[in-house]
Structures are given as C-alpha cells and as structure tokens.
C-alpha cells in the first residue's frame, strides 16, 4: 500500500497533462492490432465453418469421382441414389435405394415417436417445476440436467447393457424373446430429449405472467380449463420449439441409436455411417447434401414459426 501511495504522489508531482508520445504511439498500435484481429478472426471463423460444407455441396455435382478436382457439372450421383445404383450397384447389397429410403422411414418413425413422448413428458415436468410446490424439486432439477452432461457414449452403452439384462430376465421368466428395435431406440431418444424440451418450455413459462392464470381462476375457470385456455396457448411457442429441438436431436443422433437399434431398424445416420466406414462411394456427397437441405428446411420452418409467434405477441 505504501508503494502505491508513493507511486501516486510521484505521478502527481509530474505535470498533470504531460503526454507521453511513446505511450500514445504504443496504445494506437495496440488498438490497430486489436481492430485487425477483430476483423480477421470472423473472416477466418466463418470460412472455417462454411468451407467444408460448401465444398461438399459443390462436389456432389462433380462429374468425376474426385472430391478435389472439378471435372464438370453432373447430377449423376443424385440420379444414382434414386435408381438403385449407389456405387455403381457394386457395393454390398445393404446400400440400395430401398434400404436408404427404409432408413429415412425409420428415422421419421423414431423421430415422431420420441418427439411426441418427450414433448408431453418434458412440458409436464417443466410445468411442475415452475408452478408446483413440493419437496424434492431440486433433486428433479438435477436429474433433468444429468442426461445433458453425461457423455452420449456412456448413455448408449448403459442402455445397451440395461436392455440386455431386462430382455434376458423376460426371456427366463416368460419364454418370450424381445429384441432391440424401434421401442428401444425411442426409449433412448426420449431419455435424453425430455431434458431439452423441459429446459426450453421452462424458459418460456418463466417469462409468462402468472397473474393471467390467477385472473382466469378468479373468473371461475377450473385448473384444467385455465391450463388449456390460458397457459397452453401462451407457452405453445416454447412447446413447439422444444418439440422441434427434440425432433432434430433424434434425427441427428448416431451414438445412442447405434447401441439400441436392432435388425431392420437402422436410421439414416446409421446408414450413412455404414457407408463412411466401408468405401465412401461418391453418392455420399449427394446424400449429405440432401440431408443438409432437409435440416435447413426444418430450421427455416422452426424459425418461421417462432418469428410469427414473436410478431403476434
């Protein structure tokens, strides 16, 4: 402290408005470098984020098999996808158009099923945590955050072991022979989606004025009626956003599906992974581009819905 006081008095002893030219020059250089850095960084970052995707799209229209040399425009890979000649029809029988469309269908079945369940369960738990008063809320809160932070690979193998144990037990007790399939995939997807839906809906509920509900009850509406006439319409954008998030997560999921799917229930990511692990036919660029377009459309719809709701408020 004494040092500091000495320093201050020494400073004061100098001329109060003496300008140190060297210091000013240095500060100006610091500012210039900072400005350049702040402009270069986004240029680099956006390039880094977008270049691989753009290269992927561009080369999906390449006439040759190469992913680096442009040999002219062609839509042959797209045609191949839909004419059952993926990889010239030579690849193992699993990469057929029929199997790919089957994988798309499976993805949609799993996506719709898990989204419906997780949206209902997630919205309910969000309501209970924001509006309810009961002991143990903090524990439920922590429980909800766990699937978000525990690594996917751990959740995946946990479910794999769990289903094996349960199925062995069922087999021993009843003689039935349950196997992994849509049911087990959906169970796994719901287990991680509930948390995301709950987080999104909860944020929406927290923004909502609770007096609106009180007013409805004062006017004689019972709780059921209050919920469907007041609360639900007001949190609907949050519920839709949560549902779209759950749907996207489900469509995107690879690791948990990989460990919980059965024969004939491969989803699109599993199909793509199989292709990547074998020989990477050039059609994969075209399939990836189509997936990109599909997810962009989904995001656009979701943003459109949210935008319209925001405008209406």
């Amino acid at each position: 402290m004494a040092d500091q006081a000495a320093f201050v008095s020494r400073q004061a002893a100098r001329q109060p408005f003496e300008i140190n030219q060297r210091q000013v020059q240095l500060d100006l250089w610091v500012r210039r470098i900072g400005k350049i850095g702040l402009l270069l960084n986004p240029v680099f970052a956006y390039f880094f984020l977008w270049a691989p995707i753009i290269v992927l799209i561009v080369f999906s229209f390449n006439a040759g098999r190469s992913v680096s040399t442009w040999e002219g425009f062609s839509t042959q890979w797209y045609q191949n996808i839909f004419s059952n000649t993926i990889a010239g029809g030579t690849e193992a029988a699993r990469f057929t158009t029929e199997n790919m469309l089957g994988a798309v269908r499976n993805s949609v079945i799993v996506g719709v099923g898990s989204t419906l369940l997780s949206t209902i369960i997630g919205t309910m738990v969000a309501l209970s945590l924001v509006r309810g008063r009961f002991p143990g809320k903090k524990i439920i809160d922590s429980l909800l955050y766990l699937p978000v932070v525990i690594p996917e690979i751990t959740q995946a193998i946990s479910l794999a072991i769990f289903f094996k144990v349960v199925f062995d037990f069922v087999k021993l007790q009843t003689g039935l022979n349950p196997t992994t399939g849509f049911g087990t995939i959906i169970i796994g997807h719901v287990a991680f989606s509930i948390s995301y839906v709950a987080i999104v809906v909860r944020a929406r509920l927290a923004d909502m004025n609770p007096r609106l509900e009180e007013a409805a009850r004062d006017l004689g509406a019972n709780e059921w009626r209050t919920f469907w006439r007041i609360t639900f319409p007001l949190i609907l954008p949050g519920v839709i956003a949560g549902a779209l998030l759950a749907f996207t997560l489900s469509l995107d999921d690879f690791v948990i599906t990989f460990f919980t799917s059965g024969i004939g229930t491969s989803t699109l990511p599993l199909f793509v992974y199989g292709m990547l692990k074998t020989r990477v036919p050039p059609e994969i660029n075209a399939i990836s581009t189509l997936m990109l377009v599909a997810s962009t459309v989904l995001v656009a719809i979701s943003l459109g819905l949210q935008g319209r709701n925001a405008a209406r408020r």
Partner: protein
Amino acid sequence: MASIARLPTGRKQRGFLLALPAVLWLTLFFLLPVLIVFVVSFLSRGRGGVGDLPFTLANYERVITVFGPIITDSIWIAFVTTVICLLVGYPLAFFISTRHDPRMRSLALFMIILPFWTNFLVRTYALQTILGREGIINGVLSGLGLIGEPLSLLNTPEAVILGLVYGYLPFMVLPIYASVERFDFRYVEAAHDLGANDLRAFLRVVLPLTLPGVIAGFILVFIPTIGAFVTPDLLGGTRGIMIGNLIQQQFRGSGNQPLGSALSVVLMAMVMIALLIYVRFGDRES
C-alpha cells in the same frame, strides 16, 4: 371456504404428479442403466464378453495400466480443443455482439448456428473429404507445386482436434455472446478515462466481467469432447483414438463389457469433476 383451504394442497399434489412421468422415465431408462454399468464395472469378463461373477477390481487396474496413456491423450485432446475454441470463439462472439445493426447481429449468429444444425456425421465427413489424401488441401498444395507427396492430414490427433473444434465451436461462441451482450461498454470508456489502453481495459475490465460466459463455454465444449466418439472414429484412425472409441470397442462383438463399463465410469468421473469445478468457480447467477 373449505374448497379454498383445500386448493393449495391439491395443487401441491398436481405439481408432483406432473413431474412423475419424467422422474420415472429418467430413473428407469437413465439412472438405473448407469447404476447397472457401475455394478458391471466390478464384474469379471464372462462368456461372450458380458459381465460375470466374481467381483473384481481388475478392470480398473487395466484401465490405469493399459489405457492410462489413451485417457491422458483424451484429456489433452479435449483440453486443446477447448482452448482453441476459446481463442477463436471469444473474438468471434465479441465481433457478433458488437454489431450495431440488430439484423446484422442475428445474421452473424445464424451463420454460426446453421452449420451446427446439420447432421454431425455429415459435417465430420465434409472435413474428411477436405483432409484426405485426394482432398482439396492436398490437391491445392500439390497443384501449386508446394508438395510432391500428398500430406497425411487424416488419421492424426490433430485431425481429431480440428474436427472437434469444428463440431463444438458454437458451444463456446453462444455463452460468451450472451455474456458480452450483457456487458456495459461504458465500463471500457471509464477504463480509458482512467488511462488504460485497449489491452489493459480488456484484460482488467472486459475479460473479468465476461468470465462467466467463458467458463460456461469451457464446460460446454470440454464435456462433450472428452467423451467424443464419432469424430475420433472418422478422423483419428489408430493414432487419434480417444476414450469413447475404447468404450465402443469393448461393446462390439465379443469385447469386454466389464472393462468398457469401467472405462465409462472413469469417463463419467472426469465429467463430474469438470462439473464440480464449474459449480465451484462458475457462473453463480445461472
């Protein structure tokens, strides 16, 4: 009067009943499976690689003696990834949140999030094609005559780090953006008035006040990258292997499920430690 007196208790019960499906689902299909993994991690390897009696600590012994190096490599890869994300993500978040035109700001943010909405496998594959022996980087470099032989960029730890940065950069940008957005830039003016230059103002004022966002971003990137599976699987080859790949290997065909479970428990422990550090030092507001 009786109905009014009863109302609060009725709501109390309803509140809990609404939470019940989620609690049951997560207990049955999340907590219980994780608990089973914990138990299996102390079992011996039985026929077909599944767990069997007797109980043993041998799996953890093997995790440390045999897989210790890969675990430390994984921690290192996740750490480097997180630091790179921070170095790229902080200025980026700063750039976005200091755009004055709100439409420009939304667009800048949207351009960060959109790649993130596309399928993770597809994005990783996109990097694979760029880094490959016949990929565009090698194509351009040999086209310019800078290299004779194509560089082996794929199947290295560096490729894994690049892939992870590519996949998780938005997780760093978004929380920092939220922090910088809330920051009051009059503090910087005050610092300037008191004689600090830009660097000093940044280090002493801006950075400490946006630290909660930095810490949140650090955790949000570190946790998924430490348990990454797809990225090292597609970009890492045998040299860029991570703990997630080890776990997966023990569960395919006749692996060693108790050993894989022990690896999983160790992974969870590392994530929990990271979380505890966050809770201890992180953003107390949220």
